[in-house]
Each structure stands twice: as C-alpha cells, then as structure tokens.
C-alpha cells in the first residue's frame, strides 16, 4: 500500500466522516444567527461585519458565542474571538475546535 492510499484510508475515521466542512460550518452559523436575531438570511454575507448586519451589542455577541458553543459542542475561549467581526473568520475559529 503506498503512502497516498494509506493517508486516504486513515482519513476515513468516523470523526472525519462526520466533520462538517468549513462551508457547512459557515452556513450553520449564519442560519443560527439569522434565526435567533430575526434577520433575513439573505442579508447575511460571510465577509461582512456581523455586529452591523445583525445590529447587536456586546451582550448579544456573548449570547451568540454561547449559542454557537452549544450548537457545535465546542468550547471557545472568548479571547480567541478578539477582533473577529465577520462570519467567515468566526467559522474558521469554530472549525479549528471541531
């Protein structure tokens, strides 16, 4: 068995098969944010400032963080989100904890 086929087989673990892609994570985050903050899903764009598009303050941002942790079953220290204002970067940070 060559190295390439072994790596492919090793990647077929249950964890990896169940792992969402970053695009799926991004879509789930935007779905959840749109639903909770009652904003049309069509208005949300991956690279836009979600504080502005969702019209949320710091306490609501904390609420969003807790909802994302509960939804994805991850723990996200809030200092890792310092300066994060767009959905794509947020998805990237969450993906790194899945």
């Amino acid at each position, binding site marked *: 068995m060559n190295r390439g086929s072994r790596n492919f087989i090793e990647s077929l673990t249950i964890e990896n098969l169940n792992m969402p892609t970053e695009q799926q994570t991004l879509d789930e985050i935007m779905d959840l944010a749109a639903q909770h903050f009652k904003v049309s899903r069509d208005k949300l764009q991956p690279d836009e400032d979600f504080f502005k598009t969702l019209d949320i303050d710091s306490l609501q941002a904390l609420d969003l963080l807790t909802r994302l942790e509960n939804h994805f079953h991850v723990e996200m220290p809030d*200092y890792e989100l310092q300066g994060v204002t767009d959905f794509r970067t947020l998805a990237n940070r969450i993906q790194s904890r899945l």
Partner: protein
Amino acid sequence: MNSFQGEALSWELSAGVIELALHRERCNEIGSLTLGELERFASALDAMTRQAHALIIHSTLPSGFCAGADLRELFQRSQEMEKAHAVAGVRDFLERIHRVLNTIDAAPLTTIAAVHGVTFGGGFELALVCDLIIADKMARFCFPELRLGLIPGFGGIPRLKRDLGNGVVRDLLLTGRSFNATRAHAVGLISQVVGEGEALRAARATAAQLAKFDRKTAIAAKKFIKPIPHHELKQEIDLFCQLFVEPAVEAGLRKFVESTDLQPYLP
C-alpha cells in the same frame, strides 16, 4: 419586611421561599443603589428566615443574571475625589458588600442562585455565596477584573477556592476568559444545567424539595460543609485596595467607560 419593591431589586416571601429578583437595567450592575437595597434585604433576612426554608436569587432581565460592579459609577466617583478619599470610598463599599454577602452566605436557609446569560465579576461573586447554582444553558461565567488591573473584590476568589480546584480558579482569574454553563457544570461549579429560560422553575422545584427536610438539620449541615473564609475575605479587600491606587486601574476603567469597542468584555 416580607416584601419589597425597589429600583434595583425586589423580594417577596411566599410559602416558605424568599425570591430576590434583580431588575436594574442594563444588566444589574452593582453600584451604590443596588448595594443600599441589598443592605435592606440583609437587614430583613433575619426576620424572614423564621418563616422561610429557601432563598432564590434571580434576574428578571433578559441580558443575564448580573454583569458585576457598576464600573461607570466607580470611575466617575473616583475621578471626583483625591486618590486617598477614593480608596477610602472603595474600601467602605467593599466592606459593606462583604457584610451583605457574608450574611446571605451564612443565612440559616438553603440559598439558590438561578442564573442565565451574563454572570460576570460581582454577579458571579453574588452567585457564589449561594449554596446551589442552577444555570440555564445560556449562562456564562467570567472574572474580567484583571483587565482593569484589579482582582475580584466581592469575595470571589476565596469562595471560588472554597468550591473548586485551584486549577479552575487560576484559569478563570488569570486568563479573564468566560465559560459557559456546560463547562461550569463539568468542573462542579453549578449543580444543574437546565433548558433556556428554565432556571427559575428548576430553582422553585428544588426549593419545594428542601421544604421536606427538618430545618434544624439542614442548618447544621450547611454550617458544617460551608465555612465562610473570613480571613481570606479580609485579605482580598486589602489586596483590592492596594491595587486600586495603581495607574493601571484608572487607565483600565477609563478605557472601559470611554470604549466604543463592541467587545469591551474581552480581556
């Protein structure tokens, strides 16, 4: 006084359960107004304990249980006076709130904090005086004081140390990060995690269960298992006042009060 309706909080004694509700916008920040009403509550508590077996502390605000000390008031008042007077004022405030919290901590009835949302700083410390913490899954706990150049001043460190392993205390204190109810449950900080909006209902069910037990036994059990760390609490006040005169505190408070940052809670 079995019931009270204040600006920052209200309480009512009914069927053996005292419910203390916090309701000062924006998120129950504890300043002189709240402290004054908490002192009224502490004064009334002794008489109420003769008719009550449980106390539930909760917030009626959607934003959370309590965001901690009123930093805007602290900053404004400290700017209005000389440093020495400001420190004396801070010490007086801390000693007053410690008296209130020690009274609740030692009260001869079972105390339950029913928390949701933001439970930060002094709000976290208020929850920690209770015998049980019941949190809904949206609750979030944090000691952000180090970002102000301070330490928690309402008895948080000794009480957290009383309840948890030192590693968890260090994580919360030294990183200033927040964590959610699931993690708080995993480390043994809270006794129950319930669905969103269900903490008060679960606290009432727990209070109803407590009514079945002999009062004298329940009081003796609490006194045995939950000693108040008086010496460390006094040390905490001294250290807080010592740090309060450092330039980092004024800079930290100013940054918080004047910040337009949408994530000011982040250390």
